[in-house]
């Protein structure tokens, strides 16, 4: 039992990331308000990045910027996750902007940001 808790605390970032992923995913899926849907998407993406970044971390090592001519791989953390997350953040902000633009246009047409209402109105128009 003690071991289990030790591991729980040790894996804190990964567990937090998974729970936040679930939270974000649920809000992207279920939230009616488009703005909150977008916040849900952002939380989901950043939780994945947190997971990835925590995979790169190694206890007692420093950021991968070569200092004082030390080239030993034992001194620095894993640089790959940082690079991937950097790519991911930019993708995520781009998608956010697109999503928000769609929201603004839909509000201009239907005067609401409630997704279910918008869908009902669209279906009503089609009939």
């Amino acid at each position, binding site marked *: 039992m003690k071991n289990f808790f030790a591991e729980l605390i040790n894996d804190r970032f990964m567990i937090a990331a998974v729970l936040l992923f679930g939270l974000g995913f649920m809000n992207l899926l279920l939230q009616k308000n488009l*703005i909150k849907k977008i*916040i849900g998407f952002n939380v989901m993406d950043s939780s994945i990045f*947190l997971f990835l970044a925590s995979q790169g971390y190694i206890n007692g090592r420093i950021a991968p910027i070569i200092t004082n001519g030390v080239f030993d791989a034992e001194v620095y*953390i894993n640089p790959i996750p940082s690079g991937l997350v*950097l790519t991911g*953040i930019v993708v995520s902000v781009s998608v956010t*902007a697109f999503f*928000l633009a769609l929201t603004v246009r839909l*509000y201009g047409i239907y005067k609401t940001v409630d997704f279910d209402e918008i869908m009902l109105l669209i279906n009503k128009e089609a009939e």
Partner: protein
Amino acid sequence: MNVIYELILIVFLFVCAIGAFLSERLLIAVVIFMSYSLVMSVIWALLQSPDLAITEAAVGAGVSGILFFITLKRIHALKGTKDE
């Protein structure tokens, strides 16, 4: 000791995430979301990824927050605009 700070930050993340989803007013949701990004950037600094911390602070907490604000203005979810 570090572990305790990190746990506090993680709890803060959860509070921010849940708060953003539960808050009634969109403006508050967005502000809480921005603080979520800020905490995330602190966590990344603790995880020895300064590149990510700078980028998240500039992009996540800065520019996307501004985009959210303008969107809120466009959808009339901010009160007290100047035409009143």
